[in-house]
């Protein structure tokens, strides 16, 4: 077993990992930036070493410094958390070269899954459904027409060099295709000097559903059910829940089995998430694999009673997976609400909700400074209950009890969100936030007044 693990992260996830290590009787060494000197993880770790200035490149992203501290402190493992170096194959490789276990998959796996085309090819080979498309460049309108016909409308024409919506055209019928194809091509040429395009099926307002898996080094893989993460603002998740309320049990089984197949095909050996988009007919398509622990992992922990961080550490240490698929039961409902800062400042008053079915993951404390250098996540409110309605009502009362003063937050918006009919019905998809933002913000403004 590990003797001492370095945590190359900050905030709530650093605290989450320190707690798990503490409970496993493993020492923790935290590296931190000057901006985080007054923080709970710094206090909670067995040892904390300041390695640089606030900017992540001088601290949380400084690979060589981190490895050096790990070696000097006698660490035999490094936990990267999420973000920062968690999906950096070079860093994982440096750990390996220095005889330190990177708590995550091998550098090769990170590389493979980080490359969209390689991952897509692997999934296709493994019989995992991917978004249908041209599988390569579409050089002529004639080819475009035949590809579109084959995969069915609507389709999306995308420039290989594209980005930010440029060189991208939605197309709902063959009548629109010629114009869309030519426009996308010329726009791509004008914008990027490269007119190459390809075609994909356009999935309209899909659900974003991901399957949590865990695998050991001996080819054992189990899945721990799905999370619906469709409530996103600018691809930033706001609420995640499990199980997905509208997924049939049959489809859940199939998606779970597919995720296991995907992980096995990759030879995966850590915690990870297979992300799918699911259309209104419950057709699902692989989009990507996250080769790290995710922000929303507690949702799955509440349902399965599996401590994902501990399991991740155990399998990294070469332990055989203690779980079997038949041991995994999804018990009740769980939801995570992300409480974000909408600006900087000092937290002048803090009060967290408690009681049955309420879990808090946060490194906040009264008096702490919210700095502009890192992400805006202040706290994760994780609610568990027997029914989805109980969870929603519990979330409301928890949000009513929550007090974070001194820093502008999204608490009020989250509260208003819990009253949106589409949310209550559980039938929402990724279009939810765009559709509901106006109402939620109006209601929030109507009933509250922002701190000026």
């Amino acid at each position, binding site marked *: 077993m590990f003797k001492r693990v370095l945590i190359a992260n900050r905030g709530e996830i650093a605290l989450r990992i320190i707690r798990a290590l503490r409970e496993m009787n493993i020492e923790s060494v935290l*590296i931190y930036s*000057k901006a985080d*000197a*007054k*923080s*709970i993880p*710094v*206090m909670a770790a067995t*040892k904390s*070493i*300041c*390695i*640089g*200035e606030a900017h992540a490149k001088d601290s949380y992203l400084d690979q*060589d*410094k981190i*490895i*050096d*501290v790990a070696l*000097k*402190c006698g660490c035999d493992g490094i936990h990267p958390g999420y973000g920062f170096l968690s999906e950096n194959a070079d860093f994982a490789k440096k750990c390996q070269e220095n005889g330190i276990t990177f708590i995550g998959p091998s550098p090769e796996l990170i590389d493979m899954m980080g490359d969209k085309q390689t991952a897509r090819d692997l999934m296709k080979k493994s019989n995992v459904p991917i978004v249908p498309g041209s599988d390569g460049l579409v050089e002529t309108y004639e080819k475009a027409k035949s590809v579109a016909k084959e995969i069915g409308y609507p389709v999306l024409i995308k420039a290989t060099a594209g980005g930010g919506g440029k060189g991208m055209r939605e197309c709902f019928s063959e009548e629109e295709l010629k114009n869309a194809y030519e426009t996308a091509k010329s726009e791509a040429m004008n914008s990027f000097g490269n007119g190459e395009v390809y075609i994909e099926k356009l999935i309209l307002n899909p659900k974003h559903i991901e399957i949590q898996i865990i695998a050991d080094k001996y080819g054992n893989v189990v899945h721990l059910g799905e999370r619906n993460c469709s409530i996103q603002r600018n691809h930033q998740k706001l609420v995640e829940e499990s199980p997905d309320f509208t997924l049939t049990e049959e489809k859940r089984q199939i998606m779970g089995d597919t995720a296991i197949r995907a992980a096995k095909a990759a030879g995966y050996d850590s915690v990870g998430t297979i992300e799918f988009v699911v259309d209104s007919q419950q057709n699902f398509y692989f989009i990507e694999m996250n080769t790290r622990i995710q922000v929303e992992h507690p949702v799955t922990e509440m349902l399965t009673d599996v401590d994902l961080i501990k399991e991740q550490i155990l399998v990294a240490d070469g332990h055989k997976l203690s779980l079997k698929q038949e041991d995994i039961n999804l018990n009740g409902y769980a939801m995570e609400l992300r409480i974000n800062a909408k600006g900087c400042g*000092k937290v*002048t*008053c803090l009060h967290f909700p408690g009681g049955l079915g309420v879990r808090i993951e946060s490194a906040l*404390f*009264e*008096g*702490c400074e919210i700095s502009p250098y890192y992400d805006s996540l202040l706290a994760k409110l994780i609610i568990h209950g027997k029914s989805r309605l109980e969870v929603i009502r519990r979330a409301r009362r928890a*949000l*009513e009890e*929550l*007090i974070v*003063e*001194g820093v502008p937050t999204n*608490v*009020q918006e989250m*509260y208003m969100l819990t009253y949106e009919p589409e949310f209550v019905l559980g039938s929402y998809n990724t279009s939810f936030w765009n559709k509901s933002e106006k109402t939620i913000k109006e209601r929030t403004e109507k*009933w*509250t*007044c922002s*701190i*000026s």
Partner: protein
Amino acid sequence: MELIFEIWERFDRSSAVEMSYSSNDFNLVLKKGTATGGCMEVSPVASFTPVKSESVAQVSDVTYVNAPIAGIFYRSPSPDEKPFVMIGDEVKTGQVLGIVEAMKMMNEVTSPIDGVIEAIIGTDNEMIDYDGALFAIAKKQG
């Protein structure tokens, strides 16, 4: 009037701390208790804050020499040799005071001023934080 009270009740039930409302007839402003100042002192973490540099800040005319990088602090060029400096030693600007070893590089720590070594804060052979205080040097008078 009913409207005011309805707003008010909603306000109370919400966790809003402040609100204002105005119409043709009236303006309404509501705030909840957000006092300022004084609170940080009782924060749970204030107690674990490393306050080395602050705690010695009372001494005037003292310059601190901090670690340029996180690493192992050495007081002497090699284990068999004498320390670069001892307390009470006079030092010149640019004089080597110690070494911080990080990433297989020996980083010399030099004195920024002419003065006298007042204190050696770093512990020989131990990990020092980035920007952690190693030496205190009293400015030479006159």
